[in-house]
């Protein structure tokens, strides 16, 4: 099963889980699997139309899915899907 790495900003919605494993054939299914298991994450990942929010970066292992096949990118056992949030902190 592929594993999703949940960023800290979404962990409140996953009950503190940092990694969630989901049975899925492509990146989109992985993310929808996460939403199914933890509905609180939906609003932060997808817009009202069901498309991935523009500010959410998704990586399959170390590669941005934007340069692969986006949500259609197929996944295999042992793959890691990283949800990458932009963070701004530093000076405070």
């Amino acid at each position, binding site marked *: 099963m592929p594993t999703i*790495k949940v*960023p*800290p*900003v979404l962990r409140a919605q996953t009950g503190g889980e*940092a990694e969630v494993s989901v049975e899925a054939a492509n990146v989109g299914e992985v993310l929808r699997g996460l939403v199914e298991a933890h509905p609180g994450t939906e609003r*932060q990942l997808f817009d009202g139309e069901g498309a991935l929010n*523009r*500010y*959410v*970066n998704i*990586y399959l292992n*170390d*590669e*941005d899915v934007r*340069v692969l096949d986006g949500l259609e990118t197929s996944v295999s056992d042992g793959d890691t899907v*990283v949800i*990458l*949030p*932009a*963070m*701004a*902190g*530093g*000076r*405070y």
Partner: protein
Amino acid sequence: MASGADFIQRAKGEIEEIQPSQANEELSADNTVVVDVREQHEFEERHIPGAVHVPRGHLESRIEQFVPDKSKRVLVYCASGNRSALAAKTLTDELDYTDVASVAGGITLWKDRGYETVVPRSLTQEQKERYSRHILIPEIGLEGQLKLLDAKVLLLGAGGLGSPTALYLAAAGVGTLGLVDDDVVDASNLQRQVIHNIERIGVAKTESARIAIEALNPDVKVVEHRVRFGPENVIELLSDYDVIVDGADNFPTRYLLNDASVRLGKPVVSASILAFDGQISTFIPHDGPCYRCLYPTPPPPELAPSCGAAGVLGVLPGIMGLFQANEVIKLVTGQGEPLKGRLLLFEALRTEFTELKVKRDPECPICGPGAAELADGELGKFPDYEAFCSGAPVAVA
């Protein structure tokens, strides 16, 4: 038995000796190599332009590194022409160099005749001691240390990330450190902002940092920019610096910095921290991706908790800030591989690193092909800045 003077005299009779005037004429020829065979301190004081330095004591072991082609015209000089005569004889008789001459009267006569010399830059005795552990590393060495001393680095923020970065860059001998921060030291800063201290609570962070840096290394010139970084001052602030270190606490500043630094062609070492997690990457304009290639759109407030109050593990900015300092040193000295096109994530709780690839976005509005048409006033603009980050200064005109 012959005296030393006789021996030198005899050597001079067996080699080619040329006058400074002739040496000066030959100096510019492509085939000519000038070799200074004096000691280190003599070479450092003054030498003939373009001369390579091979002390006579190391002649046999080192000359081939500097002059591998034994058919080259080799002009050897020393202080007065004696050591160079002996060196010329060794090069010809023992090492098979075929076209060697010694400059009569050495650099003393050369200088008296009015020919050009250079006084090379070096370090003071104190600096040699202070930076000795750098100088011992071949990748840094004297040359790298001089580059560090010449470098001008701007730190955005003298807080969590800026504190360790500034301290270590100062210790490393970065000659000019600009600090941009309009805040004052607060007791709650001291859990991680190690450049400040109890005595300086209430003092401007730029001033507090300057005091700490000056106490650590008098070689460093600290430039205090006690302002809020914004569209009205961004170009002016960045212009004087070689490398920018981004430790800002809000998205408008990060996008504005990115857009202006790409415009000015300045590399940015960017890190951010939250709770137990850190991110770092180095953005080199037009050579690698920029911040907007990585994050085309800023997230809304609920996914960007830095807009409000959020905690951070005290050591985390220390770790990430020193990764930034490491990037700066590599950029300045030209050594190693910067984090270009790579985003490094660090999770302190698990002590885990993840490296992600970042590609240039061919449609990036800032570093893509259409960017040149963007007016300066458009830099850092987002139509919905105010909406997504009400607590932060708004970079829209």
